[in-house]
């Protein structure tokens, strides 16, 4: 693998941070660091699951809708206590992941189509559950999840770090992780070599959906409101971007956890940088597009050309 492929995202991140330290007022403050980290949490958590799915040569477009479903379920079941509501929200995500996984692994439907159906249907389902309304949430437990700090670090950031460690161990230290990478590298050969392809793919989509549900819960707790028509909109694209910019190829067979986190943070900081320099939203999008292209261009697989 070329050096730029492995390290491009870290170099870009360092350059961007260096630029901000020099050129952006109020960047080098603890408050700003906290803000940026808290804001990147939902995308980062989802990108971790997405990286595993992409590692199997798949893709999951339904993550934003899963966020909406978990958010709606959380609000609906909050009457039974926060723990029950969180459990129900997680189970909701698990079920969507199961549907995705069964459609893809069992029936051989292409990931982009199966998860597209869940993107459309899932958002509708979330709105049906919530009756299309925004629900404000006043719950002490969720309040703690949303705003508590441990040693100055926001709790949600610690949750994201813990999830990243778990996923990293899962990918590098377990048979499941080996199988994921093997399937992404060559599904036919993996099947012939006795890899339980269907079960591993199912597992990857369930993992991704459960992580999306976690992101939905965190987002709901932070905003103190469940807004199923808005939460997680287009987050699938941000997550895929973070994964790809972080050096995981869409063609599968490789999963880069640290790169994915760096990719998510990079995209977050680009947005923040442009906004703090008073660039309008439109320019921010265009610059982001060009940076995505540049990042992917330098990471191109040289073997092809």
């Amino acid at each position, binding site marked *: 693998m070329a050096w730029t492929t492995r390290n491009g995202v870290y170099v870009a991140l360092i350059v961007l941070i260096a630029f901000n330290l020099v050129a952006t007022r109020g960047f080098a403050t603890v408050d700003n660091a906290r803000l940026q980290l808290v804001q990147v949490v939902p995308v980062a958590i989802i990108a971790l699951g997405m990286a595993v799915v992409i590692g199997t040569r798949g*893709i999951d*477009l339904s993550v934003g809708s899963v966020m909406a479903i978990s958010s709606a379920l959380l609000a609906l079941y909050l009457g039974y206590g926060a723990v029950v509501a969180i459990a129900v929200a997680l189970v909701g995500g698990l079920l969507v992941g199961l549907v995705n996984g069964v*459609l893809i692994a069992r*029936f*051989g*439907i*292409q990931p*982009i*189509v*199966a998860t*597209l*159906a*869940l*993107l*459309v*249907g*899932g*958002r*509708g*389902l979330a*709105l*049906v559950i919530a009756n*299309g309304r925004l629900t404000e949430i006043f719950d002490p437990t969720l309040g703690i999840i949303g705003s508590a700090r441990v040693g100055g670090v926001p709790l949600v950031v610690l949750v994201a770090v813990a999830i990243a460690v778990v996923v990293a161990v899962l990918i590098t230290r377990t048979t499941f992780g080996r199988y994921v990478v093997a399937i992404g590298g060559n599904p036919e050969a993996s099947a012939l070599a006795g890899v339980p392809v269907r079960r591993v793919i199912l597992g990857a989509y369930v993992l991704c959906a459960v992580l999306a549900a976690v992101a939905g819960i965190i987002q709901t707790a932070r905003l103190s409101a469940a807004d199923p028509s808005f939460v997680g909109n287009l987050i699938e*694209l941000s997550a*895929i*971007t973070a994964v*790809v910019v972080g050096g995981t*190829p*869409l*063609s599968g067979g490789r999963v880069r956890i640290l790169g994915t986190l760096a990719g998510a943070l990079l995209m977050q900081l680009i947005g923040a940088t442009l906004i703090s320099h008073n660039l*309008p*939203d*439109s*320019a*921010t*999008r*265009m610059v*982001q*597009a*060009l940076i*995505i*292209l540049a990042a*992917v*261009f330098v990471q*191109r697989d040289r073997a*092809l*050309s």
Partner: protein
Amino acid sequence: MSGDTRLGTITAAEEPWSLDRAATRRERVAAQLQRGGAGLVLIVTVIVASIVFGSRFASVDNFLNILEASSFLGLVALGMTFIIIGGGIDLSVGSLLALSAVLTAYGSQYGSAAAILLPLGVCGAIGLANGILIGRARMQPFIVTLAALLFARGLAFAVSDEGNIIFRIASGEPVLALGQAAVIGIRIPILIAGLAFLVGWVVLERARYGGGVAAIGGSEDAARLMGLPIARMKVVMYAVSGLLAGLAGVLVAARSSSGQSTIGVGLELQAIAAVVIGGTLLSGGLGSIPGTLAGVLLLNVINNVINQVGTLSSYTQQVVSGVFLIIVVLVQRSLARRQRL
């Protein structure tokens, strides 16, 4: 059977009994069903809806409405069909349609020629850039067109002062005729989309280019060995897709006399859904233009029917269309599988 290398001759070789005549006929029926599945479902849906809703659904006016609503998505899905058959994907079309609509309305202050040429030029150029990055620089279509999705939407917002300005097309501008005039009762967008589909169908089925696209999608290595100019063909594919999305945007702007930067979000996914429902494989190499047409019409008929029912909330509509997409794809999948047995 031996002629159709793309659909599993290996199994036929392994299982010689599948070559007996009854099985072959069943295979052929299944192949037809898979290819014409969307058309069949479309016809059944229209008949059932006509019986259930009577003249509320089955009227010339309503059918023309469905056709008109289909024409915009249809143009976009047509370009998408070629790209998907060629093994790629184009996520930028929804943003391009919005950009084009904004530029049409913006350009109309300089006359109708500008209102047509400006959006087509810009959208064609972005499509061309997609094609060059994918064809020449060998970047992944998904990520290149995802960047174009962001870029085009950003440009649409930049032109319209962050979406605060909605440009209007002055009444009397000739460009409005593209969206509002009718020939023997049929509005121009329907005619344009119909013509585009006819041309697309001929190109895919009869022209060398169409065969080449299918060859690239089937196996890029094999296509290279055949000596096909893969890079150039891909550039053309994405440039045409950009142009068609631009054309759809011009028609939308002319229809509504204005250009809004917020339209077309998620249109790329609808187009992909229509193409897949139409029997085109996302893995590339195989697909049909009439199938895409049936897929587009089917999506719009379903929308129309759901609107007729009236009692369904728009949320439930989304659930229904999601479930529907799964059913159609499952049916197709099982047909394709039966073919191999």
